[in-house]
């Protein structure tokens, strides 16, 4: 086993899938035999249609589910060998509906993981200020508000701040911008791109939006029907001959053509 663990580190994979599959108890296969590594510091985007297995793959990383076969490694250690609570607190997690606690203020939401990890209280307050500023929200204005008093875009920013609170090396994002209107979405995406550069974290994003994937990804992991169809840099993706990737690229070009009025 030691050999295998070392191999994972050698390949530079901070997260690694090895022949990982996931089946529902009903026998339905959501993910079949996925193998690849996420490199430290990159932004890997799972791209695919609904039901392609993107979210399932993401949930394997922070052990919300365990693989039915094969294994997933985080920092060289199999997820099933991690304590699930420790693993999840080590990984930031942002979901589409943000999952902010409606009965907590913005401050309480952002400080959630630091408090769970029993940070000394005097360290928490400056951290929440710092994080809100980082995601472009005025701390003085927002810390005492409740999620229902925020716009969708503001909620999403708080969701990101909350996920970053304990400074996790890995950030998982499931359709993070999916619930936003197109304008806010474009805006937040651009901001996130800037944030990404500053943070240097390993980020894994799930999306079904090709332009989002091209904008944010270091590499795109193309998923279809529970299988990994290929890994591409954005340039490679646009030029790929692989039928599924080519279909996405063609669709995108058609859309751009339409926008230019051709």
């Amino acid at each position, binding site marked *: 086993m030691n050999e295998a663990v070392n191999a994972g580190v050698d390949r530079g994979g901070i997260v690694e899938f090895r022949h990982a599959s996931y089946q529902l108890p009903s026998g339905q296969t959501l993910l079949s035999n996925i193998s690849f590594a996420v490199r430290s510091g990159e932004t890997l985007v799972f791209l695919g249609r609904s039901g392609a297995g993107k979210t399932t793959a993401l949930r394997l990383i*922070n052990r*919300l589910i365990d693989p039915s076969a094969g294994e997933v490694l985080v920092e060289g250690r199999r997820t099933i060998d991690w304590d*699930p*609570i*420790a*693993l*999840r*607190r*080590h990984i930031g*997690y942002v*979901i*589409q*509906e*943000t*999952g*902010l*606690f*409606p*009965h907590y203020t913005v401050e309480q939401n952002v400080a*959630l*993981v630091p408090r*769970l990890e029993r940070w000394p209280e005097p360290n928490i307050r400056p951290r929440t200020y710092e994080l809100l500023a980082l995601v472009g929200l005025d701390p003085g204005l927002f810390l005492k508000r*409740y999620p*229902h008093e925020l716009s969708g875009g503001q909620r999403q920013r708080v969701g990101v701040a*909350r*996920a970053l609170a304990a400074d996790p090396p890995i950030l*998982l994002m499931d359709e993070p911008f999916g619930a936003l209107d197109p304008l806010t979405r474009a805006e937040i995406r651009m901001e996130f791109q800037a944030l990404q550069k500053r943070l240097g974290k390993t980020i894994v994003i799930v999306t079904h939006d090709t332009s989002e994937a091209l904008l944010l990804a270091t590499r795109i992991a193309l998923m279809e029907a529970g299988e990994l169809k290929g890994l591409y840099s954005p340039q490679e993706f646009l030029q790929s001959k692989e039928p599924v990737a080519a279909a996405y690229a063609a669709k995108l070009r058609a859309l751009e053509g339409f926008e230019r009025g051709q």
Partner: protein
Amino acid sequence: MNLSQFFSQHSNEILQATLEHVWLVGATMLLAVAVGVPLGIVVVRKPWLSRPILGSANVAETIPSLALLGFLLPLPWLGDRADRLAITALTLYALLPIIRNTAAGIAGVDPAIREAARGMGLTPRQILFQVELPLSISTILAGVRVATVLTIGIATIAAAVGAGGLGEFIFRGLAMVNNRLILAGAVPAAILALGADLLLGIMERALRPAR
């Protein structure tokens, strides 16, 4: 002698009986919440226990209250004291709405919030106490409110086994065919019920999480 004169003449006795009544209902509700809320949590967490628990609570509800007191009377420790007996019987009645509302409240928590809580690394216990219970508190209180109003009414029957309370007047009034005596029990009981309903209703609204 009109009714108000009767009431003022007997105000001490009525007050005494009202306090006894409040004690019976208060003790019952504390016990019912202490038992019912954990049972409600079990109902959501362990689906295979949900039928037996809800089924038993349902059956308890269907036993006529006088008969229930009669059944419990011969039991060793319970039958020794009238108030003990009455509070046990009343608690059995109060359980169902509390169990059901606790289960409904927890089951009604937005799955996205629970998923986020898990993903952030909250333990199951932390999810229960920091997320699920706070978010279902108003639904649980709605159950407590129904149970309280119900208990205030049924508690009048406790006088049948000598547990005191406002039922004393009602039973005496029935025996003596004296309407004023019956009202001396019924009117304060109705006021208590309305008051409890109002108070718990206000709490329920105040604690409802904003969306």
